[in-house]
Structure formats: structure tokens, C-alpha cells
């Protein structure tokens, strides 16, 4: 079972209406993605770090998530400084390091980390069901909302199928070694996992159809929109607009 680790808690952000959080997160991501000014970006990073602090999430888990993102960014650092055309500042053997390349890689690093942090603080603090519900309330297209929900739901399914198969393998004394038997077993595992998850997902969908599912999710618990939440939302949006206006 994949746990929604960050969604449990009772910080300010956990209690905030997910609709407000979605709007702020979306707005923040777009602004940070298109801005190239260092002042705005550092303000953005500050916002993201601040948000994570307010959400009171475990630092260790945040870091482990950031590591995943930054492992991708690491490859950009391997490529961009050498391939991006611009002023040559250092020559490493036959490779030229360009200033623009470094600047570009740096911008990407700041931007992605800010967006991920803000995403964790704003979005991961709601359960998937609440987010789906919020998206529906924001009149987000049904198809996209379903896509979002089912991606989550079926990742879950694949994961649980994996655990099941892995247990079946384990109880019969399987140990991973460097040999053909191990490779073949893993290949079977992956193959079976996909086929079985596909089947299971189809059966779950059928079960949903049998219970009158017509493409819309109705949720049991409604949100109550409080004035204070509107004000919080406006404040955060204003801060983000402020970032753009910085010199």
C-alpha cells in the first residue's frame, strides 16, 4: 500500500480548503516556471520553504522526496553547462563550460525545487479523495479528474499486486542471485504484475459501473468554505503577484 504520508496531520495547511490550495499551487507553479528574475525566484523559494515549515512535515521525508527530483536535475548539470551555447568560462579538456549553461541549470534547479516544495506543502497535505473532490468543485474537466484519480488508484493496484506476487515468490524460498533463474523470475513477476493489475483494474471498474458510476465522483463529505480561508488564499496569491512585481 502506498501511503499518503503527508496527508495526515493537523497543521494549518492540512485544514485549509483544498480548493484554495489547488488554486494557489497552480498559480505559484506557473509564475515560478515562467519567471527568470533571481529576486522573484528567491522569494518563491522562500514561500515554498515557508509553506513546508507551516505544514510541519517530517524533514527526513521531504529530503527523500527532493532527492528523487534532484537526481533528475543532476543529469541536467552533467549536460547543460557543456552543451548550452554561450560565453565560455572554463575549459575542461576538450569541453567548454558556458556561463549561460550554468545559469540555465541553476534556474531549473531553483524552479523545480520551489515547485516541488510548494506542491508538497499545499497538495500532499490533502488526501487524494479530497483533491479529486476539490477539482470537481473547481469545474475541472471530469475526464482529467478521473485520469488523476485512476492513475493514483491503479498505481496502488499495481503495487499491491506486486506485493502479492513477491510474497508468493518469497514463501517458496526465492533468493535473488545473479543467475538466469533470478532474471527469469523477475521477468515473470513484472509480466504477471502488469497483466494481473490490468485485469484487476478492469474488475474494479466493472464493480464501479455496477454501482451506478457514470463518470462523476460524488463525495460523502462536503467542504465548508470559510471566510478566513478566502482571505488566506488572497494573501498567498497577493504574495505571489508581489514576486512578479519585484525588480
Amino acid at each position, binding site marked *: *500500500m502506498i501511503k499518503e504520508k503527508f496527508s495526515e496531520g493537523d497543521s494549518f495547511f492540512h485544514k485549509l480548503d483544498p480548493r484554495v490550495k489547488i488554486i494557489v499551487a497552480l498559480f505559484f507553479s506557473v509564475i515560478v516556471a515562467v519567471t527568470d528574475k533571481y529576486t522573484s525566484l528567491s522569494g518563491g523559494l522562500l514561500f515554498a520553504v515557508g509553506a513546508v515549515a507551516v505544514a510541519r512535515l517530517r524533514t527526513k521525508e521531504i529530503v527523500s522526496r527532493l532527492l528523487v527530483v534532484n537526481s533528475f536535475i543532476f543529469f541536467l548539470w552533467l549536460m547543460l553547462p557543456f552543451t548550452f551555447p554561450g560565453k565560455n568560462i572554463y575549459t575542461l579538456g576538450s569541453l567548454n563550460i558556458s556561463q549561460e549553461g550554468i545559469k540555465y541549470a541553476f534556474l531549473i534547479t531553483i524552479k523545480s525545487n520551489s515547485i516541488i516544495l510548494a506542491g508538497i506543502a499545499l497538495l500532499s497535505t490533502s488526501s487524494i479523495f479530497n483533491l479529486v473532490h476539490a477539482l470537481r468543485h473547481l469545474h475541472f474537466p471530469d475526464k482529467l479528474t478521473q485520469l488523476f484519480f485512476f492513475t493514483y488508484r491503479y498505481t496502488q493496484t499495481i503495487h499491491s499486486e506486486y506485493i502479492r506476487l513477491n510474497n508468493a515468490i518469497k514463501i517458496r524460498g526465492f533468493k535473488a542471485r545473479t543467475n538466469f533463474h533470478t532474471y527469469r523470475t523477475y521477468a515473470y513477476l513484472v509480466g504477471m504484475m502488469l497483466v494481473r493489475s490490468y485485469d484487476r483494474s478492469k474488475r474494479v471498474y466493472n464493480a464501479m459501473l455496477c*454501482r451506478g458510476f457514470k463518470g462523476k465522483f460524488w463525495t*460523502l463529505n462536503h467542504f465548508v468554505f470559510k471566510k478566513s480561508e478566502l482571505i488566506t488564499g488572497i494573501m498567498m496569491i497577493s504574495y505571489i503577484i508581489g514576486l512578479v512585481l519585484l525588480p
Partner: protein
Amino acid sequence: MKEKEKESVIKIADLSFAYPSRDAVFRKFNFNFFKGERIGLVGSNGSGKTTLFHLIMGLLNPSEGKIEIFGKERKIENDFVEVRERIGLVFQDPDDQLFSPTVAEDIAFGPLNLRKNHQETKKILKKTLEILGLSGFEDRITYNLSYGEKRLVSLATVWAMQPEILLLDEPTIWLDEETIERIVQILNSYSHLSYIIISHDKKFLKETTNCIYLMDNGKINRT
């Protein structure tokens, strides 16, 4: 017999069905189910019992033949929307049925799809849990339930939709006697309910159904 009771609610005529690259499960299959009937369905593994349920719910499509449910022919996906609102199918594997994080949300899923409002849904939720002896389970996480509990919650999710006909696919396998006894009592205390039960549990069928049909070689016969 009264005129109304003679009226068949599920009428399957000359139906043929085969899974891809396998021998036909049904060839010119006929079956009638009348309102108020409570029947058991037995037959060897692979005789098409579950397939029949899936055909009735429109999850599978026959290659030929006619399916008439509630007096209307059901052919395309849209025809089955009404069928699914009035007939409740409980799957054999509860893991196929439950998908919401909490028991309450999973049970509410059906009634909400039927456009019941929140107060009604909550009332139905409470009552359903009471009937099935699951009170206090509202906030339990569905994937943390024991197998038996999952099966009861699966039944609850369909029960909450207040279907006119129940289709139960092996409702007793792997359940303890006490839980089976509870299901028997629930079914027997709702005398207006019609249902078809697939089961290999002869004692259970004897206690809950009026007659038993045997499925064999793509044919169905009253025993």
C-alpha cells in the same frame, strides 16, 4: 399464481457467448427469472455462472441473443445503466469491489451515484452498517480489513443501493459459520428481496433459496 408474479424480470433468449479463443460458454442459452424468486445456481467450475451474472449486468456482451431486463431489451452500455441501479451484483473477490479509502466512503459511493442527497446517504450508510453488524466500521480503512470483513463490506456497498434483485457470487466462501449464519438471517428477514446466489455451499443454499438451478455445458436446468 398472480399475474404480476409471472412476469419475468430477467429474460434471456437464444443467447450465445464465448470468450476470445475459447469454446463457447453459452450456445442458444435461455433463462427466465421472475420477481420474488430466490434461486441458487450451482455448476462445475467454468460452467459460466459468473459469466451469466456479468452478461446480466452488461459487463460482457453476447455475440447473439436477446437480454430483456425489467421489460426492456438491453443491448448497449446505456441500456444497462438502469439495470445496474436496480440490480446489485456482489463480486466474488472483495478486492475487486472495494476501492475507496474508508468503509463509509465506499458504501456511500453507490447511493451518491443514485443521486441521493447527503442526509439520505448518511442515513442509508448508518442503517446498512447496522443491518450487516458493521456499526463502528465507518472510518476503518478498507484495505486493512480482514477478508471476512471485506466480504461483509462488499455486500454492504451493494446493499446500500437498495437493489430489487441481488446477484451474489459465492457469498460464503472462506467465511466462518457465524458470519454465514448472519448472512442467512439478513437474506431471510427481507422477504420481498429477489436474488440469485452462486454457491457450492449446499447448506447455505438450502437455507436461503427456494429452488436450485444447475448449469452444465452451457445449459441451465431446474433441479
